[in-house]
């Protein structure tokens, strides 16, 4: 995969947030609060938990299908960052040599905690991605600001998002210029790479100065003012409350077991 493709790929998540579905129309604050509670609930499970975590897949799947977000897009992104989770958990099977009995089978506790980490990772990362894909990054920033996060953090975030594209475009131009004049030699040696990074760094500093200048000339005095854009509707409150209730039930009652018993009862 080359740099150009990667670049256009990132922009795709914005395109997704332009859609107009039930999930997209929800107030960003409602979605943000629901997502945060979801993340904390998932993380709060013990490290050997697998059964209790599985029902939580319902939420990302619902968000994805109702928000019309392509499954493969989310899957690819989750796989892309999965090495982090794998490296965190990979030594568990070696270090944790205890054994757990499940239905008469002895299974190493290390493997169970490893899978538990992977499941938690998939749940949290896919839900966070879905939040951005259905709300847009600026929307999330806005929600954070309105929920009381200090302006300086929020503006850092929105600047990061605004200028990551400019920085990538700049990199893309430099990389293209290098490739065009290296005639298949790739010019991949360390020296060129270091120079490219150096040039990028200097250009970034110069740009930062010009941006600051532009901000000053429009009256910037240390605070980022924002307009209120959203109004809480009944739908948002209903969404958040039902989300919280479901999270509570899924956390404290053995849902999988109950459903299993029920199905067994129906079948027998």
């Amino acid at each position, binding site marked *: 995969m080359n740099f150009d493709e990667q670049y256009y790929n990132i922009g795709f998540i914005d395109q997704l947030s332009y859609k107009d579905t039930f999930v997209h129309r929800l107030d960003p604050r409602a979605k943000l609060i629901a997502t945060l509670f979801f993340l904390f609930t998932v993380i709060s499970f013990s490290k050997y938990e697998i059964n209790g975590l599985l029902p939580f897949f319902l939420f990302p799947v619902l968000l994805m299908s109702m928000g019309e977000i392509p499954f493969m897009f989310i899957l690819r992104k989750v796989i892309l960052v999965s090495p982090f989770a794998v490296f965190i958990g990979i030594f568990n099977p070696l270090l944790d040599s205890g054994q757990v009995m499940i239905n008469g089978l002895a299974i190493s506790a290390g493997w169970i905690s490893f899978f538990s980490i992977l499941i938690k990772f998939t749940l949290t990362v896919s839900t966070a991605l879905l939040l951005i894909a259905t709300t847009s990054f600026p929307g999330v920033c806005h929600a954070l600001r309105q929920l009381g996060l200090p302006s300086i953090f929020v503006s850092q975030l929105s600047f990061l998002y605004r200028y990551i594209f400019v920085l990538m475009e700049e990199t893309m131009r430099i990389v293209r210029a290098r490739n065009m004049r290296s005639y298949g030699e790739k010019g991949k040696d360390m020296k060129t790479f270091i120079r490219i990074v150096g040039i990028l760094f200097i250009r970034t500093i110069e740009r930062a100065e010009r941006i600051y200048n532009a901000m000053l000339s429009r009256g*910037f005095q240390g605070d980022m003012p924002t307009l209120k854009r959203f109004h809480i509707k009944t739908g948002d409150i209903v969404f958040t409350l039902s989300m919280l209730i479901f999270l509570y039930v899924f956390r404290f009652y053995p849902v999988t077991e109950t459903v299993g018993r029920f199905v067994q009862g129906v079948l027998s």
Partner: protein
Amino acid sequence: MSHHIVEFKKVSFRYPDGTEALRDISFRITHGESVGIIGANGAGKSTLLLHMNGYLMPTSGTVNIGDLFLTRQTQQEIRRKVGIVFQNPDDQLFMPTVYEDVAFGPLNLGLDETAVRERVEYALNLVSGVEIKNKPPHHLSCGQKSAVAIAAVMAVEPDILAMDEPAANLDPRSRRLLINLLKTFEHSKIIASHDLDLIMDVCHRCIVIKEGIVIADGLVTDILTNKKLLEDNNLELPLSLQRC
């Protein structure tokens, strides 16, 4: 008729690395004048513009905007009076969506929400950019970015408009629209550009800068027809004059 004047008196400026960008520059632009600033690359045009809102302070000499002397105390007030459109629209559009970007200036003026919304609508209408208001800047074309950058400055309703290469990235049609727009703006305009045809269309007065010194200051019709003067400054006759 003297409240929107821009006056430079013996202004010199030296960058911290020792480059002398401006040397003893003096001129006076009165209310409602539109002035083109031309000169070779590196002649000091951009440095000059940066003095107009107090981003750079002269090393010696004084800058007056309206009845205000440029000092650290009057900087903020001067920034409200002078709107500067920079050369690279990516530097100027720093908010995540077009709407928020145009609203940035009016919000900093401390206007209430309805007034801000009115200003934003008005400014976006001016550059026919209403339909892109919810887009993030990185999904816009260069022409759209320039248009939004201008809207963002116009939303503050400045008395004096200063522009650095406003038409550099525009296609011919967008450039023509920009020229028409600039003609409708009644207050003082100061435009630094290499696009001499644009200057001929929009301005009536022209200042030529070379190595930080004003070497000519007069009517556009006199300066832009002076072939020798232009060629001495790495410039050419405007295309519209070359044909005849």
